[in-house]
């Protein structure tokens, strides 16, 4: 009996204690960088994204103001079940407040649901699917760097308008490939073009020759690569081998990262058109950041746009926390604050976060330089065109996001 009473007392005391903690301005934050740490997307996200998150913490100046901010990382291995298990454990056991990065659209959508359920914050930088801010949007999610709509509209439109009106798709057989193909097809047909065929290949394929032969015999003017990372580099390399480009067909790498161009080498990659929202060599600010990043990254690699997005997204998140005066540990509240402040940072310039969670900023159509034009080990791109922020992403009028129908 005595024991039971003391247990009850202890319980009451603890309840008061935790209530008291919540009232005081809590200045602890725990960030989880969830990425592919060892597979085909680990160079464009992976350890580099964790580094970007750490740099964002250091540059925020919050540590000097008495905040305690931790960054932990996890490997989702490109498997949605593993990704959502880690996310659950982070929220339930490790008390993580925010998950960043998460390349691979399949994993990204799975984690999207967990973050909403646990009322955390989700700043996705690595995944491409436009569904994150469209049909599957949540009040907890901000999609920072790029998406399939933007890739389709920028690269796709430019190619159709320059005469590439017949297409054949090589599509990675999962959420991302499907979304990219869908969004690009919409652009092609809207501009009077036609899709002649499509072939879905498994993720992480090493030999594309069968698929390339099918694309070749379709006689389409453009072969659209709706895949990413190692799949894209292998497609491009083998397309050159099978004489596809010299035979008059053009390759459209709908999603190409800095690390892919590095892996291909300029000899193979030259002349490719593609879209990114960040390139290290844009202006003095991006160069300064990238130089600092390169000093600490593996093999002194320059940051990819995904890694830059992790950095910029977190910097904006910290701005929102500072405006709130502390961490409320309430995802919706923080994301609402993030949406109410215009975005401005050294890497992506000025922009905003739309009500559906889409961060908008300018997008750039690049072309890969010829080997003779490149002046350094990471000097790869030349700028072809700039798409303004308000035209680069899904117009709110077309978005099916439920948050917009309030």
């Amino acid at each position, binding site marked *: 009996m005595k024991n039971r009473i003391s247990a009850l007392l202890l319980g009451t005391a603890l309840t008061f204690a935790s209530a008291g903690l919540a009232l005081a301005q809590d200045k602890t934050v725990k960030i989880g960088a969830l990425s592919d740490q060892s*597979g085909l997307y680990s160079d464009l996200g992976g350890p580099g994204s964790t580094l970007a998150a750490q740099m964002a913490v250091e540059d925020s100046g919050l540590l000097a103001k008495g905040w305690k901010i931790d960054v932990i990382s996890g490997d989702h291995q490109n498997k949605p079940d593993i990704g959502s298990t880690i996310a659950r454990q982070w929220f339930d056991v490790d008390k993580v407040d925010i998950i960043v990065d998460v390349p691979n659209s399949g994993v990204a959508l799975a984690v999207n649901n967990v973050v909403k359920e646990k009322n955390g914050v989700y700043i996705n930088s690595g995944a491409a699917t436009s569904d994150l801010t469209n049909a599957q949007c949540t009040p907890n999610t901000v999609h920072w760097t790029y998406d399939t709509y933007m890739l389709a509209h920028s690269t796709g439109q430019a190619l159709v308008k320059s005469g590439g009106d017949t297409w054949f798709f090589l599509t990675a057989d999962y959420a991302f490939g499907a979304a990219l193909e869908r969004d690009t097809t919409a652009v092609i047909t809207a501009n009077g073009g036609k899709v002649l065929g499509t072939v879905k*290949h498994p993720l992480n394929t090493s030999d594309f020759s069968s698929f390339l032969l*099918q694309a070749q*015999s379709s006689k389409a003017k453009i072969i659209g690569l709706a895949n990413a990372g190692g799949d894209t580099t292998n497609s491009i390399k083998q397309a050159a*081998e099978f004489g596809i480009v010299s035979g008059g067909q053009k390759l459209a790498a709908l999603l190409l990262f800095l690390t892919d161009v590095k892996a291909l080498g300029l000899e193979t990659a030259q002349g490719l058109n593609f879209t990114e929202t960040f390139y290290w060599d844009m202006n003095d600010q991006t160069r300064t950041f990238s130089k600092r990043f390169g000093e600490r990254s593996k*093999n002194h690699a320059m940051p990819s746009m995904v890694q830059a997005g992790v950095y910029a997204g977190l910097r904006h998140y910290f701005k929102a926390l500072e405006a709130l005066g502390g961490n409320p540990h309430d995802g919706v509240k923080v994301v609402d604050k993030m949406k109410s402040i215009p975005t401005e940072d050294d890497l992506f310039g000025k922009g905003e976060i739309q009500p559906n969670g889409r961060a908008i900023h300018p997008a750039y159509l690049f072309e890969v330089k010829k080997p003779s034009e490149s002046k350094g080990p990471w000097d790869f791109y030349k700028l072809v065109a700039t798409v303004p922020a308000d035209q680069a992403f899904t117009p709110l009028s077309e978005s099916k996001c439920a948050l917009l129908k309030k």
Partner: protein
Amino acid sequence: MQALYAQLLVGLINGSFYALLSLGLAVIFGMLNIINFAHGALYMMGAFCAYFLLNIAGINYWWALLIAPIVVGIFGMILERTMLQWLSGLDHVYGLLLTFGIALIIQGVFQNYFGSSGLPYQIPDALRGGMNLGFMFLPIYRGWVVVFSLVICLATWFLIEKTQLGAYLRAATENPTLVRAFGINVPRMITLTYGLGVGLAALAGVLSAPINQVRPLMGADLIIVVFAVVVIGGMGSIMGSIITGFALGVIEGLTKYFYPEASNTVVFVLMVLVLLVKPTGLTGRAA
């Protein structure tokens, strides 16, 4: 119909990699009774070796075809001497676990230094371009891969099944004590055999370098399929693994044409079917 011919030929090209790799596995399993899970990592080392030879020492592809298998083969022999030989009398599981661990370590080290997206390796000038066969455009390099690996496969088969040295080897597997009594250094022969199997993997790696990215995980992606090939062909059967390697490449190629979504599972479906009907593999003999 033309497209079908093209797919058959493409399948044959992939089949040559399967054949070279499964041949090495079959040789090692047949002679050492070790299921060599490090095979994929050693294949990857072959490709990296070619990359280093070209970019650091300026040694071209043709020499790499010779040097890389020797370098990686020696590395393999060191592995055998220092680690694998102690497992000779034990259950297969020990060898499998050890080589699997070795594979993870090798891949991890390479990944740590070179990342996952890989390094470029260009096709040698002499093998660039292609020819129009009417039904498809055949890159000369791919044609070269098929012919070269076929020659190597048959040469290995000949060495083991038809020569004096091969006879010693086969005898040493059957009854090492007796062969020793004839004055033959059996442990050294086994080390050399492992080196040969590893060298074949490295050779496949060099052949593959200009086609695929030179990536730390290039072997890990392939090795599972190759194991399925060996299981289907019959563990330890030399000719069986060569024929199955090419045949499965063709079947996979056809799947890529008719139902691409299933192209990375078809080999395993076949493996299940073969195991159900003939557990020793197509050409394997009952133990």
